[in-house]
């Protein structure tokens, strides 16, 4: 155990006991297994799935046991993004023989519907009953139905937590933001910058409504570079491709390295801005205990999505753009920041069960364990991580199989 603690230092204020962590991990692993191990698979795939469940369970255990969220979430989140791209691109080559989106694919509504499109489609769908995107309504994994279904679930549960736990693109700029140890450009000073995604959101929603087409996907999405892009057939599609690559290099690679911030997610992504509005409708919040806060501003400078300011600290809560990534909670030396359940007063380490006068020892023991388990943090992590794991399940397995195929057979295609 000492050895383990040396390797994985424990945040004493939030750590769970070994038994509680193990119990929660087993519970979580059971649900994860439901998605990974019940699917029919050959022997090789079964082994990969088993390894993945074990790896995910280990990350969850470490989050529970050590109390550090961001560190282990990042490992999952960045891996998810990288493996998603491998799997997605491999799948495109398997299915189409190319990475670009051809006219035939568009006409057959074979464009995967990604969550970023949702805000652009809502207004036309409400007014003209049409979805302005060439995807299938239901039936495939990336259909409008599946993505809207998942999105509706997040509205009431994790809100913008999507951007740090579920989004298959977010891990890319988070990954690049971790390259280098020093901030080369302190972007925090540009306070108004955090309003930029809302401007982008307003623009793309309005423009999409006016031209009856998802403008962001057609012209502005940096992730087209790593997933699928429109076939270059004319000058217009050439310019669009130049914009995609330019934005990807700037927002996902260069700026995150310079600023150590998730600039694409924090300054540009319209879905992030859109999802921010639902942060108020979710059950989980991030709360700051003003009594404990010493104004060290480590949380402000460490926040990757510009969601903490001096002003927000004074109010005792984050901005609506908070992605529940746990960075501020990990960074706060005073333990003044934690998750809370909406509508329930914020108290640190509530001793509800311990306060009772338990005459018997075993009752005290159980009460202690329950106190550990019924923690907002446990629920948020479990909910958000489960979402991420469900969304990623297919891609992670597929990508690992493709990589092993590359090593053994020299091809990533199935």
């Amino acid at each position: 155990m000492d050895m383990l603690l040396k390797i994985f230092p424990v945040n004493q204020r939030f750590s769970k006991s070994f038994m509680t962590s193990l119990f929660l991990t087993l519970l979580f692993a059971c649900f994860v297994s439901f998605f990974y191990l019940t699917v029919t698979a050959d022997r090789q795939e079964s082994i990969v799935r088993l390894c993945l469940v074990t790896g995910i369970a280990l990350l969850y255990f470490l989050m529970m046991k050590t109390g550090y969220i961001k560190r282990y979430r990042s490992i999952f989140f960045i891996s998810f993004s990288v493996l998603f791209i491998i799997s997605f691109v491999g799948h495109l080559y398997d299915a189409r023989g190319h990475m670009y989106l051809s006219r035939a694919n568009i006409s057959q509504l074979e464009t995967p519907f990604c969550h970023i499109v949702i805000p652009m489609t809502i207004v036309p769908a409400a007014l003209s009953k049409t979805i302005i995107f060439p995807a299938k309504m239901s039936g495939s994994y990336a259909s409008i139905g599946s993505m809207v279904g998942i999105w509706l679930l997040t509205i009431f549960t994790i809100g913008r937590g999507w951007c740090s736990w579920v989004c298959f693109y977010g891990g890319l700029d988070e990954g690049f933001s971790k390259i280098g140890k020093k901030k080369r450009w302190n972007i925090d000073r540009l306070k108004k910058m955090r309003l930029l995604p809302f401007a982008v959101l307003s623009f793309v929603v309005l423009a999409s409504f006016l031209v009856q087409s998802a403008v962001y996907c057609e012209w502005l999405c940096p992730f087209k570079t790593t997933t699928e892009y429109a076939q270059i057939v004319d000058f217009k599609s050439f310019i669009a491709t130049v914009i995609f690559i330019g934005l990807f290099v700037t927002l996902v690679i260069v700026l995150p390295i310079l600023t150590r911030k998730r600039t694409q997610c924090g300054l540009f992504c319209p879905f992030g801005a859109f999802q921010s509005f639902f942060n108020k409708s979710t059950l989980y919040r991030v709360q700051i205990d003003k009594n404990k806060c010493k104004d060290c501003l480590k949380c402000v400078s460490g926040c990757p999505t510009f969601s903490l300011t001096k002003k927000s600290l004074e109010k005792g809560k984050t901005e609506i753009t908070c992605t529940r990534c746990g960075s501020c909670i990990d960074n706060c030396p005073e333990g003044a920041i934690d998750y809370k359940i909406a509508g329930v007063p914020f108290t640190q380490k509530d001793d509800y069960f311990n306060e009772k006068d338990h005459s018997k020892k075993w009752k005290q023991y159980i009460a202690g364990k329950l106190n550990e388990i019924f923690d907002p943090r446990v629920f948020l992590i479990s909910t958000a991580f489960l979402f991420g794991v469900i969304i990623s399940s297919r891609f992670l397995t597929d990508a690992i199989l493709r990589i092993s195929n590359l090593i053994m057979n020299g091809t990533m295609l199935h």
Partner: protein
Amino acid sequence: MLQKIRIIIMFALAGMVFISVPVYFINFGSQSVGNFMTRVLKIRVDPVYSGGELMAIFNDPYDDDKGIGTYTYPDAKEYSPYRGHLDLVKYIVRKPVHEGAWSEFNKFWVMELVFNTLENPLNAPAGFSFPLINIYISLDGKNGGTTRSAFPGIQASFDSAHPWHYLVTVHGWQIDGSLYNSEGKYVSKVLVDIIKKDDKIRVTIPIENNTGLETLTDKSISYHYVTVGNFSLTGENHFKPIFLSATTHFGGGNPEPECGPRIYDYLQPSESQYDILSAYNPEKRKYAVLRPVKVIAGEGLHIPDNKNDTMDSAEKTYQVKKRKRKMDSLKSLIKMVEEVPEDVDIKTELACLYFEMGEDEKALTIFNQLTGESDSDQSLVLAYLGALHAKKAASKGNNVEKIIIVKESLAILDRAVSQAEPGSLSMIHVLMCRANVFRSIPDDVFGKLDTAVADLKTLKKISKINGLKEIYINVSDLLGDCYIRKGWHKKAVDSFHDGQIMAFAAGDEYHVLKLKNRILFAEKQYLDHLIMNL
């Protein structure tokens, strides 16, 4: 109190997350949300992406890639299984789109052609090897146009009521198709997309200002001539010639290679494709005149699919034609019987026609009335009654009963032959009835195949002497069949060959082709027989 609320909320949350999320994904998933959006909220994906709203759908019969009814594919192995590659089965026209999205053109008009099978064994760049598609479009109310093809090669002309204004040509050896005007002048490129899983070719025509098609609206009426030929790199305007007999590189079954249309499949309007395409006149060098389909929103002509119909389309059309002729005769005969009820000859003719058309009950009623009538040809009446009796046996379940009825019918038929006047026309009918029954019943039970052969031989002689070509062809076919059953393959080949020569002389392409296949079959059987004996 608040603490308790907190615990309740947490339990509720735990339940919601750990139960509802997995259940949602496993049991309902995207399907339920998608269905809810589609059915309840009535939301749909903007049809602009799939090429615009549907305007008209035309179904074309399966397996009618035979041009005038007799065309065959070239013998090259790439054409295997020698059907379906040039078989257009559906033509879909979408409404013109004036504000395109995610598209090369802002204004476009989409047509989709679904084929029986769309293969690319020759690795053509556009993704399909054989079809040469020409869509001639006549715009209602537009002046000008022409009834002649802008480019020779197709060997067809167009309905003078609907002269065409635009021609869209598409083939697999060029990435984009071409749009021409009626003067044969190139107007614009046409986008061609292949949807392999649906065997579909999507054609997107620009209707921008410079094309002259910009006035097209949802309500526009147009007439489309959709032809599918076989692509040839060196052929006249890429039309591969079709000759009388197929060779490795050229199709066969065209009795007039210089005049017959080089169209394997034609999107048929209400008339039959074979009727339209075969209406050419080689003597006067007049090409077949194509009739278009009318395209107007919601008024697509829907010819039912007959994918599961196993009957060969050429034969079916031949039969349909025959039946049509018979129907016309039937109408006039019924009228005549009503006018002159005492005329037994007309009555006999009507009963014979009913028999041929399978109306057994009606035929039986009339023949029963004619039995004993002194004016009627009793041998003919007996022959048909015998044949009807034999047909009745087929419907009996009990084998003993069957045998008894067949034996009765054999006796009636023998009686009919004995009463027939040798060399008369009725003798032909009587012998035909007997031969047909005798060759249809099991030889090992009744032993009548030899008699059938003898009857057919007599019939062959009589029909040859009297110049009855149709009967001669049919009898040669039946006789060949009897020979095959007896294992006399060489004789069978000869008999089929006789029939084929007569069919060729009579200009009966259907039987030329049919007997050609029978000869091949008999020769193969003969070879197998020789090999087995070796």
